């Protein structure tokens, strides 16, 4: 953002007292563009604004006017509202000093007021510039008598800019230049004795250089109100650190004690099981299997029946499945088997297994309910009409059996089953089941939820 020393020299040559007094705006513009390209414009503009804010740095009126002109000239091809320094023009035309009181105002950030002639020139420049204007020199403009001339109306532009400004957050508009004049009231060298307030060109040049050039030049900075942003406290670490306790255990590799002690029964039964997953066993084979299981309590864990294989066994050998499941009741995996069972595809065999299990052991009621829901939805979604009728009959008989044997409480499934019966009322067994439900319903009206609605 800062200028290089060479760039600064070029800028100051364009803005020198001599040049600005003698040359026309046109030729000022030409020499400016000779030194600077479009990319430079913003940083040059920022530097010009800083110079304008410090009256001792652009002391002569022609310099000031030329500087204002350059702010315009840099963005002449763009619409005036798009000129990033358009707000500077508004600021110059409406100096903030108007609400001054008591004389203690010294706005270091303001650009000093300009004369009526300069005002006239600036408002023409930004509203309706003419070619002749640029042929004039800054001196000519300053000497212009504008008391009788009509002012150009720039209120439209001002309004547009004000509107654009109001869209920007207040924070972005709160900054203030970092450079504050603090002129030395005492002479700084022998040359200056008796000459207070006289410009020393060398010092002036040095000052401008240190403000506008170099690393972290003041022109790059601004100052704005700043929050105190507290860092949060460290999280309380009460038991966060890793305390180390010796582990008083030797976790070592184990010896397989079952080596070479396997019985021939194990091999044979595994062979039978693998057959049982694929097809029905003969009665004799079934008996052999069940006998072996009977002999050894733990054998059931060695037969290779995982929950995933249960459906195959159920479909092919429901009787074996029932026996095996009954033996697995102590296993902590039994719920896995149950959930596979109630979620498997509904069939005569699966129903048979569930039915037998319900009579032999107490199954968790949620499994039975899940199974019933499964059955019902299978019946409802099946496409094949013939198969559907068959399945519905099966489900009805199954449910009747469950109800008669008091395996399930009718209350829990009443609504679901009733809807099922109505949907398939064309089937005799469904009607029968419905009648059974009704009879239970009337027998115990208090306990049935639908009794009141009837």
């Amino acid at each position, binding site marked *: 953002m800062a200028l290089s020393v060479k760039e600064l020299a070029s800028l100051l040559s364009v803005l020198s007292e001599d040049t600005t007094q003698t040359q026309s705006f046109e030729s000022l513009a030409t020499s400016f563009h000779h030194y600077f390209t479009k990319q430079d414009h913003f940083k040059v503009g920022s530097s010009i604004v800083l110079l304008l804010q410090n009256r001792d740095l652009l002391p002569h009126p022609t310099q000031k006017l030329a500087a204002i002109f350059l702010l315009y000239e840099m963005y002449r091809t763009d619409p005036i509202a798009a000129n990033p320094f358009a707000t500077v023009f508004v600021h110059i035309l409406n100096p903030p000093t108007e609400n001054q009181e008591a004389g203690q105002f010294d706005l270091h950030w303001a650009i000093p007021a300009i004369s009526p002639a300069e005002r006239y020139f600036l408002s023409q420049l930004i509203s309706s510039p003419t070619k002749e204007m640029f042929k004039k020199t800054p001196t000519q403009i300053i000497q212009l008598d504008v008391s009788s001339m009509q002012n150009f109306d720039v209120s439209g532009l001002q309004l547009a800019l004000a509107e654009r400004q109001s869209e920007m957050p207040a924070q972005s508009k*709160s900054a203030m230049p970092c450079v504050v004049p603090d002129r030395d*009231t005492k002479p700084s060298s022998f040359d200056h004795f008796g000459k207070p307030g006289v410009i020393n060109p060398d*010092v002036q040049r040095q000052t401008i250089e240190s403000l506008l050039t170099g690393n972290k030049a003041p022109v790059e900075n601004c100052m704005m109100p700043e929050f105190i942003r507290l860092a949060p406290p460290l999280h309380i670490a009460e038991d966060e650190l890793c305390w*180390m306790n010796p582990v008083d255990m030797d*976790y070592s590799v184990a010896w397989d004690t079952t080596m*070479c002690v396997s019985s021939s029964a194990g091999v044979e039964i595994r062979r039978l099981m*693998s057959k049982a997953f694929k097809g029905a066993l003969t009665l004799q084979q079934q008996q052999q299997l069940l006998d072996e299981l009977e002999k050894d309590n733990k054998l059931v864990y060695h037969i290779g029946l995982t929950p995933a294989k249960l459906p195959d066994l159920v479909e092919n050998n429901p009787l074996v499945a029932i026996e095996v499941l009954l033996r697995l009741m102590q296993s902590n995996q039994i719920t896995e088997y149950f959930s596979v069972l109630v979620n498997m595809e509904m069939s005569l065999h699966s129903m048979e297994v569930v039915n037998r299990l319900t009579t032999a052991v107490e199954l968790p009621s949620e499994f039975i309910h899940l199974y019933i829901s499964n059955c019902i939805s299978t019946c409802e979604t099946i496409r094949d009409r013939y198969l559907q009728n068959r399945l519905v009959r099966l489900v009805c008989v199954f449910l009747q059996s469950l109800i008669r044997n008091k395996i399930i409480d009718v209350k829990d499934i009443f609504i679901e089953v009733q809807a099922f019966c109505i949907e398939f009322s064309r089937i005799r067994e469904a009607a029968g089941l419905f009648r059974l439900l009704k009879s239970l319903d009337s027998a115990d009206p208090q306990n049935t939820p639908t009794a009141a609605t009837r």
Partner: protein
Amino acid sequence: MADNKAKNDSDAEMETSMPLPQVTESQKELASQAMSEFDKKQYGSCCSLMHKLIAQRPTDPKVAHNKAVAEFFQSGFLTTDEFRQQLSKVCQMAHVNIDNSESLEDVDHSVIYFNQAVILYHLRQYKAALNILDKLFQYIEPLEEALAKKATMLLVELYLCTYQPEKAMGMVHYAEKTVFTAGKNAGEKENKEDQVDEAWKPKISLYKTRCLLMMKSMKSCKREIKSLMSTQAMNTAVIYLKSNFEHLRGNHKKAMKMLGSVSTSDFTEAGECMPVMYNNNLGCIHFHLSKHHLGAFHFRKAFQENENAIKDIKRGAEHNKNLSGKTLNSIGMSRHFELLYNMGIQLLHCGKAMPAFDCLVEAVQVFRSNPRLWLRLAECCIMANRQNNDEDRKLEKRLEVIQGSDGSGIHRKLRLGPGLKKDNPSPGTPAIPAATHEFAALCLKNALHLLPEDPLTAEKVPIEDSDTVKITPEMVLVPAPPGNPLKAAEVASLRYLGHLYMAEAQVAMDKIADAIQLLNPELVVDISLTLPENKTEQDKSERDPEASESKGYFYPWSPKDLTRAKAIAQYDLATAHAIRGEYDKAGQNLGESSSRIGTPLPAQMYFLKLYLDLIEGRRNMAQVVIKDHFGHVTPNRVEMKMNSKPGVPRPDTAVS
């Protein structure tokens, strides 16, 4: 048998496809001899018996397995790599796919599962080990009893290693009820079973104590420890647990005494380096006593001991590559990363943000799923950028308010500073660890992401090459704080900070009216930062009255009191007003705030004071401030007469 074989061959997909030849009587005899030699720890003769047996039964996976086990024992557990290879061969022979199977298919394979889990445990791949043992546990009932015991114990250990004390405790209870119950199998075995049970009692008690400590149920823990101390007061593990217990209760001196009562010069049976643990635990104690530099000293010492121990082992292992050459127990011995973690936290509390950051960034590569670690990393970044909240009051910060002057004479300029904030986005991407706010934000996102999840499922650490396994302890070092991660006192201060941050954000979004409401200093009612004495644990009543060595913030934080906290909020309120152009209100709040915020004033206050004076053109007021506080930058006295004479031309108008 031939008949069977033919049938089985046709069933190609059956997992029991290859039928084994019938075991002959002589093979049975060999096997039982081998086992008894193994039991007698005569691994040499056991090995030679197994060689004979394998020659006769080359396809029997169990024989191959036991041969591998015997050889591993014979090597003194130095051949871990070979054992792993053998084990995977056995898996092939038995058609077992441990990693991909959903459950154990055959109880016959349980030993393979168990041994695999043991190895993974020693490699500190606890998650993987747990996976396997969970599968095995589904078949715990039919397991042979010795194996069932070993498996449940390892399961408890793994739950503890992964900070799941409730699950561990559940397993201990289960074990007590079933696996270790006397007389499970009725009959003549009963007496013998009783003895075994008795022998396991102290082990079970140790496990329980560890669970209870981790669950922080101090009352039950006290009971358990008391009974442990009455029976085995000389056991190092017991003494360390007791020390841990006292430490958790806040009896740090007692805890230190306990630690000191154990000789620290050797390795434990399980291959752990006692000096490392001793120094580490001393570090923990000093941390809690807020003696951070002493704590750091002990952690550093623990670190050195750890390095030395590893060096010794490495030297022994130089001839062999990979894991082999170290004993199985010492493979996972290094506590490098835990120590890094502890050290990092400690350094952070010493105020050494950058060294802490370096430690934690290394630790996070291993403990990736630990949300607290990510939080701590973020704290390091914040501290690296802002050492503490009092740094605004330092002279060097105040010197930034006016950076100097340019020019001289009529051209003299003061150069104000741009402010203290360095909000410059850091170069590079936030993904590269560096102590920047961007990286901190990333860390916090990670922490937040990890927080609600089960720390075990959070991230899978890919295991690279199975032959050259790197030791990747996938453990979570500390538990993700369950339920209530923050202490009540912490919440109060964070609510206060939340208001300040929110207000600043609202100003940035141009919602200054909202910000002004939030910054009302009267809203600041509590920033208490010390934990109340009868504090937060669930079992308050159980705390010993003598255990009152106070706990609180382990690192000082300012604002320390309510007045200052309010004053800071009021300063921010002044700032918000200033930004909105309400300079009178800003000035009033700034004045009130400055009288309460405590001296030396934060540099921001000078900035705002100068800003308000200069923006309203009170150049002379500004000069008073400059002359009083930054006298070195200006030669000018305040011209008081300027104030009293209205209409005097401005000093610099004379120029033009």
